[in-house]
């Protein structure tokens, strides 16, 4: 685990867990990967239930599309961690639309800055619809990451009250350009 990335991620999670989760809490780890983040956090906090998920098979976790699990509703956890290499928007949309109660959400947003391959859902969300198809090539030169992140996060405003939103220092490449954003949100349904 890259130290700079893990420091930022842990800093963000410790802040919210210390502030909002003094009692034992349940966690859905949507993109568990190597499981290093929560192996550390479970030693520090009272995690009463931990559900690891990933698209890749690994012993001890569910191989499942966690965005679809969230979209179905009925999930009962206090913390949802979406530490993905790509973009977390499918998960985020599902959480906003189906959250049963107050929840703390951690989002890792990869591919910030100048986007080389904007996902179609984000393009649609920004309202970019052309009948001609050179748009993708044009977007690769335009920094839309801030707009995209704000557009998706603002989805919560219709259905939830945002208690607090914090951003941890982004991870950067060798040239110092940001390559991933880390955001934590505490919210409850309206």
């Amino acid at each position, binding site marked *: 685990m890259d130290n700079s990335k893990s420091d930022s991620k842990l*800093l963000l999670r410790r*802040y919210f867990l210390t502030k909002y989760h003094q009692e034992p809490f349940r966690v859905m780890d949507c993109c568990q990967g190597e499981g290093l983040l929560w192996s550390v956090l479970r030693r520090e906090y009272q995690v009463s239930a931990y559900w690891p998920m990933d698209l890749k098979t690994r012993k001890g976790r569910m191989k499942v599309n966690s965005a679809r699990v969230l979209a179905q509703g009925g999930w009962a956890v206090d913390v949802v961690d979406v530490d993905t290499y790509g973009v977390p928007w499918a998960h985020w949309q599902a959480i906003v639309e189906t959250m049963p109660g107050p929840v703390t959400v951690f989002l890792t947003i990869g591919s910030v800055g100048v986007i080389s391959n904007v996902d179609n859902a984000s393009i649609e969300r920004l309202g970019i619809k052309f009948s001609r198809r050179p748009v993708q090539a044009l977007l690769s*030169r335009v920094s839309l990451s801030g707009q995209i992140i704000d557009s998706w996060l603002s989805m919560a405003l219709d259905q939830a009250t945002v208690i607090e*939103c*914090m951003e*941890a220092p982004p991870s950067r490449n060798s040239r110092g350009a940001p390559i991933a954003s880390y955001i934590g949100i505490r919210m409850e349904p309206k």
Partner: protein
Amino acid sequence: MAEKLRLEWVEAGSLEDNPENWRTHPEEQVRAIKNVLDDPEVGWAGACLFNERTRKLLDGHARKNAVDPKTLVPVLIGDWSPEAEAKIMLTLDPIAMMAQQDSERMQALLAKVPQDDVLGLLLGEMKPKEQMGLMPKTIERPPTMSWVLVGIPTARFAEIADKVEEFNQMDGVFCEVSLSDG
């Protein structure tokens, strides 16, 4: 048994780490310990544990390593056999971790202390959130955008270049140009 333990103040540097100590202490924990010890309202609120028969430290490694070696630290000194010492080291912390939680009483305690103080002590730095690297983020709806795709023969691009630059200078407007080879 009543006289088994006595309290002394000992230089931290004179207490060697016990090679059989099975607890490890991450940097964040040591920082949090240091913060509590340095808090003028708190300081030392417990003592290390030392076995004078074996001359080994049983508990308090993180605390004594968090301070200058010349610092006098409180040490409870007892006399145990090596077997008893092993039992103590194996059960002291695990028994403490078996404690559960009375949320109402915890909330009542939290109401007595500013939450930022508690967070600062636990997270290892008595700094505002911004200096810890975390920045508050306001969630707002971005402006609704209109997107204009303008195609113009490359040979005529110079006719509109100034206008494109004018658009580019407008606040909130994204403007990119791509030249096709054909």
